[in-house]
């Protein structure tokens, strides 16, 4: 993984000193509250319902065991002993105290971590595929490009005061695992017909009140022109993005209002003026960056192992986990093993300090000392030898981290909701729990197959509800928590926004509604190979609507 050199370290250390001084001046009454707010946001610090919330950056989701141990230390020393992995591959702590935050940032800097630009109206953490570098369907490892972009975006002097937050995601496969098209910029690494590497650029996606799938604004951008093109997009946005209304300030609104064609024209005009300038990448810069992400020294004999198959025969629980929580690896005899953070009774994405320490140890033992965070709020050991899978699973099971539900109904995405967030209209963690209870039976979940439920406690859409196969959005109705349901969303290459089922549904009935939706799918699917999304796209909303709002005695209250 990328290791800081003395320059990266110096920048992060200088940032800690800067924020320490800003905090000191704020506490001494020398910085107005609203201005300190903007400054602390750029260091990941929100003031939430109960306390500050600190969001720590995990660039493109990649963590070393040493960094994970530091997160455990922070959870114990400054927080209540746990952290929460987010939908953008970051981690949040919900209970830090403002005067201690500079110390937390200093601790993070000691392991090459930071909270820079994890909130505020600036360029946020660069995210990518959690299987980068190991996925079978990958064109090229996207992480060197992510890191180049991270460095360009870090403390960019021109783009620290944008109209609104700005998120960039990279994908290099035909199955987009980074939800790139609901980002402000989605970068798809591609090869053109001549075999040259480059990018397809999508701009103007986003969730929230006005969800949009980003349109393609450039089919092929040559490899060395990445940063100049990003800079051109950002400059157009910084100049022309709306600042009169916070709800219309994202770049998606600018793209929509001027139209993708005109927007593209403006970006291209700006780019023409800078593409041959200092931002043009040098081939050696790319080579050097790729050197940070070389393959591990894999065991060439890993594929000869026979114990894995024997264990699957002898232990059905292990077999179930293997079936659900492992993904294929390029290297024979290796797998990517998913750690489910969606256990019953736990808020999705939550991990305790003890679990973090244990995960760090497992990473050292079985996965070259690295872990990844996924945008589905799980973790991955990306490089596990077949023969190590069984001991890994045994330990994960002891830790309560081996729920075999990756990709299944209870592997749902969920924001912190009303329990933690000051923006939320409604709870989401409790609803997740209801759904867990209702679909407890794993065999039933396996029969339903791949289905993505995504849930947000408010319109801001942190839980990505608009691109859930089933989306659930909390709304406030006269002080009561109600939920709007959408069907048919997707954040993958076939990205689409979900359609509303109809009137919102009462808290007590939401799990029942999900069960009815699933019931329609099971009745109507042409075979067990037809996914929920495929069935929905074939049969449309009507059958679902009829069942959800059926006026029999058990009808849901709408």
């Amino acid at each position, binding site marked *: 993984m990328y290791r800081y050199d003395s*320059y990266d370290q110096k920048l992060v250390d200088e940032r800690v000193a800067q924020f320490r001084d800003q905090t000191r001046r704020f506490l001494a009454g020398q910085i107005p509250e609203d201005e300190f707010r903007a*400054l602390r946001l750029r260091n990941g610090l929100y003031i939430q319902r109960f306390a500050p919330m600190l969001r720590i950056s995990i660039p493109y989701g990649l963590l070393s065991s040493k960094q994970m141990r530091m997160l455990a230390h922070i959870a114990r020393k400054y927080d209540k002993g746990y952290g929460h992995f987010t939908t953008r591959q970051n981690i949040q702590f919900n209970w830090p105290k403002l005067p201690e935050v500079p110390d937390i940032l200093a601790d993070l800097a000691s392991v090459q971590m930071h909270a820079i630009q994890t909130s505020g109206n600036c360029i946020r953490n660069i995210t990518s595929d959690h299987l980068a570098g190991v996925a079978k369907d990958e064109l090229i490892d996207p992480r060197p490009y992510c890191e180049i972009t991270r*460095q360009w975006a870090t*403390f960019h*002097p*021109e783009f*620290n005061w944008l109209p609104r937050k700005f998120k960039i995601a990279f994908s290099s496969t035909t199955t987009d695992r980074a939800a790139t098209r609901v980002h402000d910029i989605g970068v798809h690494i591609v090869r053109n017909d001549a075999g040259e590497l480059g990018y397809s650029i999508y701009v103007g996606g986003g969730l929230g009140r006005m969800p949009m799938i980003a349109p393609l604004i450039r089919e092929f951008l040559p490899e060395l022109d990445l940063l100049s093109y990003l800079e051109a997009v950002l400059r157009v946005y910084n*100049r022309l993005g709306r*600042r009169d209304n916070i709800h219309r300030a994202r770049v998606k609104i600018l793209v929509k209002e001027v139209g993708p064609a005109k927007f593209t024209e403006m970006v291209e005009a700006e780019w023409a*003026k800078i593409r041959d300038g200092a931002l043009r990448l040098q081939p050696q810069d790319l080579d050097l960056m790729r050197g940070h992400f070389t393959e591990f020294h894999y065991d060439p004999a890993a594929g000869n192992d026979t114990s894995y198959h024997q264990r699957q025969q002898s232990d059905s629980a292990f077999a179930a986990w293997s079936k659900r929580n492992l993904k294929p690896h390029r290297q024979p005899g290796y797998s990517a093993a998913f750690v489910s953070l969606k256990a019953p009774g736990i808020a999705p994405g939550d991990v305790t300090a003890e679990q973090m320490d244990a995960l760090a140890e497992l990473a050292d033992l079985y996965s070259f000392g690295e872990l990844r965070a996924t945008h589905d709020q799980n973790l991955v050991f990306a490089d596990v030898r077949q023969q190590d899978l069984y001991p890994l699973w045994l330990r994960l099971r002891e830790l309560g981290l081996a729920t075999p539900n990756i990709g299944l109904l209870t592997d749902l995405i969920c924001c912190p909701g009303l329990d933690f967030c000051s923006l939320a209209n409604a709870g989401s963690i409790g609803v997740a729990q209801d759904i867990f209870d209702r679909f407890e039976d794993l065999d039933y979940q396996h029969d339903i197959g791949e289905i993505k439920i995504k849930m947000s406690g408010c319109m801001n859409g942190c839980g990505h509800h608009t691109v859930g196969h089933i989306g659930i959005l909390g709304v406030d109705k006269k002080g009561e928590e109600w939920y709007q349901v959408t069907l048919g969303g997707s954040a993958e290459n076939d990205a689409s926004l979900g359609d509303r089922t109809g009137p919102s549904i009462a808290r007590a009935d939401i799990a029942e509604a999900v069960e009815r939706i699933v019931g329609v799918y099971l009745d109507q699917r042409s075979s067990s190979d037809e996914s929920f999304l495929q069935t929905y796209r074939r049969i449309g909303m009507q059958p679902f609507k009829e069942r959800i709002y059926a006026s029999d005695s058990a009808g849901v209250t709408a």
Partner: protein
Amino acid sequence: MSALIRNGRIEADDFAVLADDQTFPEGRKVIISLARWQAEAVLHQAKNLIVGVHLPNTVSVDELWPILQSAPLVLLEFPAFGDGRAYSQARTLRDRYGYSGEIRAFGGAVVRDQLQAMQRCGIDAFVLRQDQDPQRCLDAFKDFSIAYQRAADRMPLVASLRRRTR
């Protein structure tokens, strides 16, 4: 009275901002609105007056460059803490057109914690917000000693440093 930092020093402000209905004072350097500049600049320059122009943060430097290039000073506005439009104007002036006159920032966001980024974008003079302590503001230019991005200043670049140590 707001303090002025120019080229890293606290200096006396030698320019007066002139309202559109005010007449030119004898022998003073002044800053006039863009509208007035468009109408009268040639006139004043013929009289060897030193006249700067105040650029609203909503206009395009690319479109206006032909009439801006002769100005000895461009005044950019940073009206609120979160309004960063003029950062792009500054970089366009300095980086794209090599503008060599004074680029001056004024407004509610010209405070300690934005100065270094403004400097990086090519701004060399700062009309500090009234509540700012000019002496303490000078510290702002030392917050960061290196940078990842080439911009309009001379801060050492990480990429160049790396090439040197390679």
